[in-house]
């Protein structure tokens, strides 16, 4: 018989470069303290980060891939949201 499931946590790490925390993977741990320790051991053995977040996996709500057209397609036609939509004279230079 398999053991009862030890909770799953999603791991986010902020790298040195000052970027936002980024999802790197997941770990199993009984509680949040051990989740942080496991995340450090598993995902930062070579100085990959300066800060770790762990989030219970079941606390994440994901969009359904089946809805992706409805969710994201409407922005596809709104080309006026991009700078290249607008014409300015070349003499203006970089704008």
């Amino acid at each position, binding site marked *: 018989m*398999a053991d009862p499931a030890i909770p799953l946590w999603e791991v986010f790490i902020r790298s040195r470069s000052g970027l936002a925390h980024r999802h790197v993977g997941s770990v199993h741990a*009984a509680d949040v303290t051990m989740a942080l320790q496991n995340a450090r051991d598993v995902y930062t053995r070579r100085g990959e980060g300066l800060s770790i977040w762990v989030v219970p996996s079941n606390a994440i709500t994901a969009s359904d891939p089946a809805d992706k057209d409805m969710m994201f397609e409407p922005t596809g036609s709104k080309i006026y949201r991009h700078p290249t939509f607008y014409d300015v004279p070349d003499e203006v230079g970089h704008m």
Partner: protein
Amino acid sequence: MYTQGLNNHDATANDTSANSERFQARIDAEERIEANDWMPKAYRRLLIRQISQHAHSEIVGMLPEGNWITRAPSLRRKAALLAKVQDEGGHGLYLYAAAETLGVSREELVDQLLAGRAKYSSIFNYPTLSWADIGVIGWLVDGAAIMNQIPLCRCSNGPYARAMIRVCKEESFHQRQGYEITLTLARGTAEQKAMAQDALDRFWWPCLMMFGPPDSDSQHSDISIQWKVKRFSNDALRQKFVDATVPQAHLIGLEIPDPALRFDEATGHWVYGQIDWDEFRQVLAGDGPCNRDRLAARRKAHADGQWVREAAMAYAEKRRARPAKLAA
């Protein structure tokens, strides 16, 4: 990983031909298949099998090298070996996590391994008899693993591909430290050089077997390639490995234990002799030199850790209950 509730919903989706066609079109367009995306049941099964076997291999692979940590010849070698073995444990964990996105639990997968129902790489059923084996394992076994894993970084399954990118970043240290050990022995005393040669003699053929059966009788190859789980055939990767490795051996004065080995000017490849596929099948079926030891060691480690897992869960439960009690 991610929201696994949706995976269960996916598992019941019908493998209708329209869905399958759309799926293949996504694969052909080099899109990555993510945890909650629709996928054919057979694709899910193939990936669960492949990723879990890969994870088991990383975990069991810690045993032959772990055998030498306490006997490493210097502090430098010991620190490196310890770090390498710890990396392999990490690789196993990345991979179990990738498999879990497909709707299995790590507990189930570990259970399959301990029950003897899961396979892992045949190479880890060979013993590590001398310190030179640690050098040759890093150089050749990790070298072969790199050949195999680099194309997997472009695998159609997103979680598996991302795990492979992390793994590949860490592997090159493994191979270099192994080659450095082998090179040091090969340039040492006559006795040390003989040790290195002996290790190469024992590991060469099992390393060639790591790439799996010849293309002429591989069962899963075609569909794997169609689904872009695999990018190159077993024989193609094996040839790449031989071509890369033979000059490395010659450079440090070691002989490849294959009397038939020759360089073919016309193709630019090293042509190698006949692989003993009976030995491969025997090891895979459980009758290699160390199969029983490896499983016994994993079972013991799991059983010895039982109280720790239970205590951690009990402590977490107690902590959860505490604020409720205070409030009452």
